[in-house]
């Protein structure tokens, strides 16, 4: 069983979570080029590596960020968005 640690509720089986994708900074649509906007909208980076991703603990609706090595399938750390502000 894979375990994900919710920053609020502690370690839980990964079946209690859903994944919402890699965190990607949005370019300013008013000033960026069409190419960079299209890249943001349509393209995703599938290369393995350390990524920061949105995850949610379904039972408590807790949204948080997981720093995950997708090459080695390791969760390096999890934290609330506010903790990094």
């Amino acid at each position, binding site marked *: *069983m894979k375990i994900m640690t919710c920053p*609020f*509720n502690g370690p*839980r*089986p990964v*079946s*209690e979570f859903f994944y919402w994708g890699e965190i990607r900074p949005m370019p300013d649509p008013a000033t960026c080029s069409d190419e960079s906007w299209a890249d943001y909208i349509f393209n995703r980076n599938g290369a393995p590596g350390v990524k920061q991703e949105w995850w949610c*603990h*379904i*039972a*408590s609706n*807790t949204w948080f960020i997981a720093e995950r090595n997708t090459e080695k399938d390791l969760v390096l750390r999890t934290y609330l968005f506010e903790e990094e502000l």
Partner: protein
Amino acid sequence: MKFPSPLSPIHDALLTGAAVWNSADSLPPSVSQFDASDPQKAALLGVADHSHLPRAGVKGPGATGWLAELGLSLPSRSNSWLPFPDGGLIGRLGNTEYLIEGNAARVAQIMQTPRAPGVYPVLRQDAVFALCGSRVNELLLQTCNVDFRCLVADPTQLLLTSMAGVSVLVLVAGNKIHPVYRLWCDGTYGLYLWETLTGIAEELGGGGIGLDALP
């Protein structure tokens, strides 16, 4: 007749011929006894329906201050709960979300008092079940990934987890020798969870019980 809370989400499933109903205190009816074997089932593995109790929910950045102004004692940390001295409980489900249950006058006060800025109502139409008995952990092994016995060590703790695929809120009542686990889930999942839990309970020698049989 207008009840302070709606009928149990599993009301129709409880309409068995032998059930004894309790409809006192202007609350929606609840099953006080399913049949004469309730005590035996409760000793092994009983599942009871607590959904008839009135409840209210509030959330938002102003919720803590607003509830304190109403004179309520609030749990100091997230994922914990406190009983009220005159019955009922208040649970803190996150930094700024609360569940209040059990005392009709208090629930009515919370629902009728004008809310302060930053206080938002949360519709609570939960199905609420109680689990008890010596084989309750065998049921948990089949339906849940969290060992609820950790609640017995810290009875003020609330757990938010998943049970048979349904998100549930769990706390422990009763005592250390005869713990009673109370579960809240979305009412629309109530019938599924009730049938799943009572089905497993029947395989283990227990089943659905009335509230009078709870320890």
